[in-house]
């Protein structure tokens, strides 16, 4: 029987259920089929008028109806992904998940339709200020719960019956990976045998799009949406905002085996390293990214040569892809030219707070299926960052260990090492 402790004597943490929703569809079967066929989920925004916007495309999830707000859609997406993950794992009972919830969620804010509704009720005919809004605010009691930062996690905790105080967290675009890391740490400490880790994001709304647009972070390739996300290409021009959720049921190997659960994969290591260089840019020497990836490898007890595949952060911004290349080429050395590294974001866009979790789910599926999803739209390679991006077509390979990178504003860097079940 394989050992149930890792090289450091800690409980091995396994994945026994995954769930995913993206602009490609709901559920892992549909997502995996499209992801490995090179289908793009990016499209023109129809949720709201885009008059005057520089970016008018997104990977929004539109098949769930018109959302009331980011908080509501993020909750709906998290709910769907969690439902699928828990059903697959077969853990616990309905409404009784035997462990804590770690939820990566966009910061919750009141939005324009709601602000305007309060303004209209204020009865002010001329200039509307917050004093006017305050006069009418007691007529909107439901807005209190809805626009609290903790509301999404609270509702998910209530529905699935997770234990203890649910954690709502943000490490910007690394949030989903941080949620998984918190779950891994809790299981390794012996605080719990299981954890529900979710990343969700449903924040394609006018102000959110404009905020990223004002930072010049978004692709403006509006005329050909499916070609807009071009990670690692020479003509990449920014990321494409997108929505979705990924959920993972993590368990100690002991607990999973004891109940006869199917092991989908192993979270072998987690690494993080904060970058203090700039609010939105990476340190030009790449040291924090390099340290992050090395920390993850060290935590997994592996060397760079053990890694068979990299699920890239690969946002398609000029800055990220260059820095990710610098980080990976430093860690993996000359091997980088032969090490497959692909970006799911070329098809699903950048799902922000959800990205780390969604891409961890896809990394688990990549290992399970021994098949690497491609980086699509790789038509003009960037000679400055020569990589095997699994260009345009999925490829089969023998894969034992993969690494998934997540980097975010505010100096956030997290890498996860995922492996197949120990023999």
């Amino acid at each position: 029987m394989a050992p149930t402790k890792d090289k450091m004597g800690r409980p091995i943490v396994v994945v026994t259920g995954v769930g995913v929703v993206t602009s490609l569809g709901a559920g892992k079967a549909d997502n995996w089929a499209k992801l490995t066929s090179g289908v793009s989920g990016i499209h023109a925004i129809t949720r709201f008028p885009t008059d005057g916007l520089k970016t008018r495309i997104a990977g929004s999830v539109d098949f769930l109806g018109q959302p009331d707000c980011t908080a509501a859609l993020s909750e709906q997406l998290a709910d769907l992904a969690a439902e699928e993950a828990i059903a697959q794992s077969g853990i616990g009972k309905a409404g009784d998940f035997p462990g804590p919830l770690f939820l990566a969620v966009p910061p919750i804010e009141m939005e324009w339709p709601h602000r305007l509704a309060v303004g209209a009720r204020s009865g002010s005919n001329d200039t509307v200020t917050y004093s006017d809004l305050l006069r009418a605010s007691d007529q909107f009691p439901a807005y209190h719960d809805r626009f609290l930062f903790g509301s999404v996690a609270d509702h998910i905790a209530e529905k699935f019956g997770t234990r203890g105080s649910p954690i709502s967290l943000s490490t910007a675009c690394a949030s989903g990976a941080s949620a998984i890391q918190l779950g891994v740490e809790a299981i390794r400490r012996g605080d719990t045998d299981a954890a529900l880790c979710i990343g969700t994001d449903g924040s394609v709304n006018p102000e959110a799009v404009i905020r990223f647009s004002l930072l010049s972070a978004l692709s403006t390739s509006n005329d050909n949406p499916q070609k807009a996300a071009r990670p690692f290409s020479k003509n990449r021009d920014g990321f494409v905002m997108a929505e979705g959720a990924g959920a993972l049921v993590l368990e100690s190997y002991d607990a999973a085996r004891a109940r006869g659960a199917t092991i989908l994969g192993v979270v072998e290591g987690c690494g993080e390293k904060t970058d203090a260089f700039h609010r939105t840019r990476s340190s030009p020497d790449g040291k924090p990214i390099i340290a992050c990836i090395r920390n993850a490898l060290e935590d997994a007890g592996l060397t760079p040569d053990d890694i068979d595949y990299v699920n890239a952060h690969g946002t398609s911004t000029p800055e990220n892809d260059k820095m990710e290349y610098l980080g990976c080429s430093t860690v993996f050395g000359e091997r980088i030219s032969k090490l497959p590294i692909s970006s799911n974001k070329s098809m699903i866009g950048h799902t922000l707070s959800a990205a780390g979790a969604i891409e961890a789910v896809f990394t688990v599926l990549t290992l399970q299926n021994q098949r690497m999803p491609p980086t699509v739209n790789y038509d003009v390679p960037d000679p400055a960052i020569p990589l095997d991006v699994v260009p345009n077509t999925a490829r089969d390979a023998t894969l034992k260990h993969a690494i998934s990178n997540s980097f975010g504003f505010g100096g956030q860097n997290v890498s996860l090492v995922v492996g197949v079940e120990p023999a």
Partner: protein
Amino acid sequence: MADGAREAWITGIGIVSCLGEGADAHWLKLSEAKPSADTTTFAPYIVHPLAPINFDLQIPKKGDQRQMENWQRIGTYAAGLALDSAGVKGKTEVLSHMDMIVAAGGGERDLSVDSTILSGMPRAANPAGFLNERLMSDLRPTLFLAQLSNLLAGNISIVHGVTSSSRTFMGEESAGLDAVRIALSRIGAGQSDIALVGGAHNGERPDLIMLYEFAGLMLKDKFAPVWERVPGGFALGSLGAFLVIEAREHAEARGAKALARLASVVSDRRRRQPGNVTASLEGLWDKVKDRVDGKRAAVISGATGANPATAEERAFLAAHGELAVRATGTYLGHGLEPQFPMNLALATVALQHGSLFPPCDSTGLEKPMSGPLAQVVVTGVGHWRGEGLALVEKAG
């Protein structure tokens, strides 16, 4: 603390609020027992504004200050005070393996942009186009970064060089409780040696007053200490609080002294129905009570003043009447995310003095305590969700 867990010390505190900055200013004001609040600026709503702070002292670059909104300045400032207090400011070797968990809200609005849109959009020929146009031209590009929850941590990394891990928890009061709980668990289990934990809140914001006034939770018209409020309500407070929490062995190796021992942090979440706050607190109390010496212990409560949560906490505390109780919200107002770290810091200050500050409550719940103080139980009951307790002890 689990069996075999490593002992954790509080080796640094950094606090700012309406009472001023630092341990001494807070102790002085708490000892005077004369709370004050601003009843006019946001009338009828009452707030506890930040005391005047020279941000240059902890955030020397004006360029950094300009990239932040006030909640981030408050937090970055308090974090700097905590690093100074722990003797690690500027010590790159320590800061590069220091973990950080920040409890954060965020989302500060540009009030004038909001007002322009609220006023003009209903009358615009193309309302959606008007919204897009105004946001595209009126929003400062950097405002987004000043709104983002995780950018308080980001600013602390940039200004103070804390660069191991950086995690931001959201979720009102629970964020502060769980930030400290998880930092302590990681240290206890050997996953971390030293951590900077805390948060910041700017209570002088009409958009936040509105958020809580949707549920009618704000204290209005007349100030009263927390336990005396009828029908209840909280006054928002501007405050920042950070703690340096450290494995004892790590502190000893670098010659640092303990300000206090952080013995335990426990938290829970129950759907709020009558009696559930009490039940939650009873369950948490069962986890720490065997270690509490009633003769030398007191409670520092994070009660907000808003009911029914505060009424239930009051009943719980009255039922455990052997311990003297103090509600610091009377002085500080309510700062949500950083409230629990702030009360841990104030517990640490009281333990350093070896005594408790006087009562400020005419209802009789807060009783005088004259004897020596060796332990403080800190409570945190969220106004809407989340309950927690910590046990802080005199070290050595």
